[in-house]
């Protein structure tokens, strides 16, 4: 009998599954916060966005949101890439690209919000 060939996965699905759920639970209060503050900012964008991050609660929630959302999103994009791209080298290339993009975006965004908080 011919041995069934199974496509090799990227090997750490179980821990990613768990981390995806943990970050999803962490996203629930952050999503409620971004919905409420989005309505608040939309009432007068140019005046409110300048002082919005001066409040410590908003700066902390925004930093937590950036970190959690990019972590959750990079795992989700990894799952989608693993599902739809079959070429192994392309798959690994795109996963590494997404991870690097997420890390760079998170660091830059957190730094920018810290600046807005300090000068606001």
């Amino acid at each position, binding site marked *: 009998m011919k041995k069934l060939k199974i496509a090799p996965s990227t090997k750490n699905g179980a821990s990613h599954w768990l981390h995806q759920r943990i970050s999803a639970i962490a996203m629930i209060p952050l999503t409620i916060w971004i919905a409420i503050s989005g*309505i608040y900012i939309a009432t007068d964008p140019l005046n409110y966005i300048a002082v919005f991050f001066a409040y410590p609660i908003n700066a902390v929630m925004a930093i937590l949101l950036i970190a959690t959302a990019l972590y959750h999103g990079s795992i989700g994009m990894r799952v989608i890439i693993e599902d739809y791209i079959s070429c192994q080298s392309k798959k690994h290339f795109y996963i590494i690209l997404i991870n690097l993009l997420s890390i760079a975006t998170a660091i830059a965004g957190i730094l920018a919000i810290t600046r807005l908080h300090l000068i606001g």
Partner: protein
Amino acid sequence: MNNKPTSPHIQIYKWNISSLTSIMHRISGVVLYATVVILCWYIVYYAYQVNYNEQSNYHNCECFITIFLKYFYYITLFSLVSALYYHFFNGIRHLFWDIGKGFNIDCSKKTGYIVIILTILATILSMAIALFLRYYI
């Protein structure tokens, strides 16, 4: 090889609520990831060009995003807000599935319709509140 059953082809597939919510969860997830990345880099741009000591110094960059938003502001905002609420409600549905509740077909169909109705209601309600506060108060 060719006699194996293949996965459903998208052109001849009869849509039902479970496949629709599943693929919409993925699409809205990708959209939200792109939104978070673009918004983060916009905040970086904003934070390093703003200077609170001088008056009337705020100016937007003339890049693709702002030109696009100038013409398609409300349709973009509506899509992003509905994607956020959809991913939020359907994510809660997925978390309930993960703890083993709501797996039978009737219940999952019902929760699928509830998710879509809640998404529409929450999107319209929050945009209406924002527009009301912006233009009438």
